[in-house]
């Protein structure tokens, strides 16, 4: 686990009252790589996400993020919006959270809020319509247009986000996260509810984001075809603890992982594997 990691989760624990959702979890996510966090339902994956993105304050442990220029930030000390703003961590949600009454384009404009606030001189320059603001606004529209084009929604730019089909909403949410120009993109089950064709398109999109933007990606996913196809590194959780990690191929053959998914003990899993192959 050496190498250049952008995110390092160190002995993270999260307790809700008496329930331990995440227990002493440590893993790293490497720069410009796709790291997948998998595990059965209730394993604590989304809780980890919420800790990383600041929606929960971890009970203990440290979450460090290192930017390309070597600037290191302790995420567990920041508020949620500051993590997105300063640490440049963007996220999507398991149950899509777009702004349904705003158009696809507006959704992507809201994502550029902080950059645009500066450009509008905290609103005052914008109010008088200063030329510098107009240029910045046009640039923001251009960036949004580029992303709409990449996710194939350019012709629906002016439609309300809430009117888009499910698969389009998923892609729009990713594009919205990318419009914040993040260093780390956290995706919570991006392939959930997608059909095979849409899943394939999603894989392609994520690979192109890694290749073109150089964004590091951390994703939670249940769709193993997506995980196996695109991830560079897989971390497996069950009952709040890490039970395995490694390359997709390595994980696929790990009896502990299979046992966790099948809910059986290890010997049985090995038997299943052997009989299956």
């Amino acid at each position, binding site marked *: 686990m050496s190498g250049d990691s952008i995110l390092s989760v160190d002995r993270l624990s999260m307790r809700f009252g008496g329930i331990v959702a995440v227990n002493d979890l440590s893993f790293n996510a490497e720069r410009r790589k796709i790291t997948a966090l998998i595990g059965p339902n209730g394993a604590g994956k989304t809780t980890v996400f919420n800790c990383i993105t600041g929606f929960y304050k971890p009970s203990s442990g440290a979450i460090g993020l290192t930017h390309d220029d070597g600037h290191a930030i302790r995420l567990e000390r920041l508020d949620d919006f500051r993590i997105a703003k300063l640490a440049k961590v963007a996220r999507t949600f398991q149950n899509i959270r777009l702004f349904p009454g*705003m158009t696809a*384009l507006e959704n992507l404009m809201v994502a*550029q809020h902080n950059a645009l606030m500066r450009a509008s001189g905290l609103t005052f320059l914008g109010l008088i319509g200063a030329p510098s603001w107009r240029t910045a606004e046009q640039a923001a529209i251009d960036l949004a247009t580029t992303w709409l084009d990449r996710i194939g929604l350019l012709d629906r730019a*002016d439609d309300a986000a809430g009117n888009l089909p499910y698969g389009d909403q998923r892609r729009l949410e990713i594009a919205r996260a990318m419009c*914040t120009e993040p260093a780390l993109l956290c995706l919570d089950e991006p392939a959930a509810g997608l059909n095979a064709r849409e899943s394939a398109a999603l894989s392609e999109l994520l690979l192109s984001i890694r290749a073109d933007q150089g964004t590091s990606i951390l994703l939670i996913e249940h769709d193993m075809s997506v995980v196996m196809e695109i991830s560079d590194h897989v971390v497996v959780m069950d009952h709040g603890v890490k039970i395995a990690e490694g390359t997709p191929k390595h994980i696929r053959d790990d009896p502990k992982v299979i046992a966790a998914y099948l809910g059986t003990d290890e010997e049985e899993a090995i038997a299943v594997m052997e009989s299956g192959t």
Partner: protein
Amino acid sequence: MSANPAAQTSRAPSAAFILKKSLISALVALVLFSLMIGVRTEAGPDGQLTYWTRFGDLAAIVAAVFGGSILIELFRQWWGPVDTARIVPAPVQGALSLAGRLIAPVLLAFTFLVPVLFYDERYILDLGILVLTYVMLGWGLNVVVGLAGLLDLGYVAFYAVGAYSYALLATNFGLSFWICLPLAGILAAFWGVLLGFPVLRLRGDYLAIVTLAFGEIIRLVLINWQSLTGGPNGVTGIPRPTLFGIPLTPGDDGLAAMLGIEFSPTHRIVFLFYLILALALLTNWVTIRLRRLPIGRAWEALREDEVACRALGINTTTTKLTAFATGAMFGGFAGAFFATRQGFISPESFTFHESALVLAIVVLGGMGSQLGVALAALAMIGGFELFRGLDQYRMLVFGMAMVLLMIWRPRGLIGHRAPTVFLERKEAISSDLVKEGHG
């Protein structure tokens, strides 16, 4: 009339069904009104309570309820099932949105001409000023409720702060209206921030009740801090506004004398009319402008989904505060205008009733729609004036109208939202998709 078989069958037992339903309504009415209407109490001259019966009135009301429910039921059956009622207004709504583009300029042009057309009708001018004041208040509150989705039940507090700021600064320090106007706005915004800072992390109805409490606190302080505010007697002798220093008085230095025309008290009314029109249009212009700026878009995003906003790095606390302060500032401007127009203010003008009225204007207008708010203010205030002659029945009718209007159009008159930025076509978004906010 309807192809729906269910609708056909439901019509069959109509006569008996209607009669039964109306009888039940009449019976309910009889019990409800038996003591409240059938018996009238009053304290006699010696303080002793007496009562007398009004069975005639009671019978009349119960009969009216009976007849009324028969009519309503007949109307419902003629109209068809409730669902078709929604289909009918669809083309109407289409026509409305088409006319909507025309309504705004026509309305604006007409408003500009009101003082010319009705120069001799003081009553209409006064009513116009009143309507415009509420249009401005509605537009101000619209920033908070309609755009940012924060439920504010104490908006009148900022109106009061603005009014008292001008009144006290002008009467105590002799500052002119044009200096006090921005000050009143700033002070109101300051109070908005002061209240907003601790409470804006509350959600939904908690925020509503805290703002309501704040409005009441301000009113109670105005009543009780007699040395500063004059208590229930209020502040009198508030200076009238000047045209940038030129008073609108009959004297030699007055505007009429300077222009060489004959003085008329109507000049001041006309001046006040254009003053509030200018202030309202300023509010409108700023709001429309802000909507297209990142801050305005963040307000609307906040209304749609606060969690997503935070995930995008938007500081929701400051965003809410700016919405609160902006709305409060406009309320403060309107308050200063109110004070200079009336020449006298007292806490009685700043009751919860005012907050409810302005909120009703915003919600009835269709949350976030500038035109809708203007139309709703016209309808509510104008309609309220129609019942002036009815005196004590006025508020009763007003309350009923509020209930009926909400049932008729829960999402307001203008049921769609205009996007703030577009690539190719600007298409209104149905309000069914637009969220109403949680705070």
